[in-house]
């Protein structure tokens, strides 16, 4: 397999993993964030502290958990605390540097909906709900978001504000008394986005290899803003790709009960 032979999803996971540092204390959402956080741990950030909302602190799973409470997380954790303690001392207490979230629906200001599609009382689709996300979004020092682009997921207006990002933009967080930074990074399968310093609207700063502006716009429900100087995301290294594929293969085998 040649070096350039990787999928958009693999690029997304690797790009997201690169944003994490060994010093980070990261509250990990399930799905795409979980893969990215563990690739970081297995490559350039071996000392990163990964925390899952089931109470596992400093966990180092050999396979990706299917749920946030798989036994693997507890077995490999430094310590496991009760769920109320997790949310009170560790999240509300300000110990989390990065909250890493996925989204069913996302808007340009990093507001997230994982509650309903349609009206709350008469939903078209009843989604699982917020879980830990509403307070992860407000109590983590900053928030990274990762999701695959589509017009269904990246929308002009989300149907429900499950987790508050930058609201209507600008200083909306501060006006609500939220003193954390909120979403500072969005990693999709096509690009890396950062909020504009003034408006807080997510702006594309780097395109993944082979991706054009048109591809980003075609899979996004709002009119995309691009930075004046656009970078190209370095492709996954052989180590990153091999680590990710090994992890996925181990995980798939484990979840089938092999």
């Amino acid at each position, binding site marked *: 397999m040649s070096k350039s032979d990787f999928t958009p999803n693999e690029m997304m996971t690797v790009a997201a993993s690169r944003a994490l540092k060994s010093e980070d204390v990261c509250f990990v959402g*399930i*799905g795409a964030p979980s893969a990215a956080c563990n690739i970081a741990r297995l490559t350039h950030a071996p000392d990163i502290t990964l925390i899952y*909302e*089931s*109470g*596992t602190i400093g966990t180092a799973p050999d396979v990706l*958990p*299917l*749920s*946030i*409470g*798989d*036994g693997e*997380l*507890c077995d490999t954790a430094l310590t*496991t*605390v*009760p*769920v*109320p303690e*997790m*949310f*009170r001392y560790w*999240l*509300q207490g300000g110990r989390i540097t990065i909250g890493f979230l996925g989204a069913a629906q996302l808007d340009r200001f990093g507001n997230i909906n994982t*509650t309903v599609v349609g009206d*709350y*009382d008469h*939903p*078209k*689709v*009843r*989604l*699982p*709900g*917020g*879980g*830990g*996300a*509403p*307070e992860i979004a*407000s*109590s983590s020092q900053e928030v990274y978001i990762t999701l695959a682009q589509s017009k269904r997921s990246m929308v002009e207006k989300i149907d*429900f*504000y*499950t*987790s*508050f990002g930058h*609201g209507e933009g600008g200083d*909306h*967080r501060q006006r*609500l*008394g*939220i003193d954390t930074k909120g979403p500072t990074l969005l990693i999709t399968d096509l690009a890396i986005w950062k909020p504009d310093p003034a408006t807080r609207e997510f702006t594309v700063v780097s395109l993944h290899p082979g991706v054009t502006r048109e591809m980003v716009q075609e899979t996004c429900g709002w009119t995309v803003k691009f930075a004046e100087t656009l970078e190209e995301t370095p492709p996954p290294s052989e180590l990153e790709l091999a680590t990710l594929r090994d992890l996925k293969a181990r995980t798939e085998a*484990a*979840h*089938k*009960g092999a």
Partner: protein
Amino acid sequence: MARFLPLSEAVAENLNDGDTVAFEGFTHLIPTAAAHEAIRQEFADLTLIRMTPDVVYDQMIGMGMAKKLVFSYAGNPGVGLLRRLRDAVENGFPRSVEIEEHSHAAMANAYEAGAAGLPCAIFRGYRGAELAKVNPNIKSIACPFTGEELAAVPALRPDVSFIHAQKADLQGNVLIEGIVGVQKEAALAARRAVVTVEELVDDFDDLHPNLCILPHWTVTAIAVVPGGAHPSYTHGYYARDNAEYLEWDKIAADREVFRAWMDENVLQAAPDDFAKRVEKLRLAR
């Protein structure tokens, strides 16, 4: 004082139609056997509380036992949505279910407040979150010292909480290990606490001094049900049956397939069947 009972009696004596009940477990130690016993005994009009309602609540809602659900994340963890719950919320089938929806932080704090004998929980939460607009039980309160606006939710006080744990000793003390979740709080917040356990041991002497223990005088009834958390898991005993969670997505997708599955695996089954279900998942000890 804890009484050792067969599961059928423990459920019959402690659950009533119309009760507010928590079958609590945070991915780990979900009290499936107790929930299935409640389904077999056909309780009705229950208010179901749980932070993470998953397959067992999907089953209870699909059987029409719930009039209300209090929750913070209703999904099949890592798999997707709960399809029987969706059918109830979106189509009112087999009956409509009232929803009281919170965040995890709120539910965890509310259980803790219940265990602490407080009327409400206060925490820094729901800022900018729309749940505060659709759930009248989410209010705010000003800190009397700093003036900071904080969120407040009512304490959770279930009529009865059901939990699953590793072991009980002969006196009826209960030991919980691994991901302990919110079960200690759920048990202490409730008027009655019913515990299923993997096994009975003589005593807890010579164990680590800081283990999570519910003293026997906080527990109403104990039933020994090996495998009673399946398809969830019991740390130190058997692994999570992830394949079954994946399979549930297909079973719950169709009303008739669901009923047939419930008939075969719950209505025609018994607590003793759980031991067989975890046989292939047992860990080397």
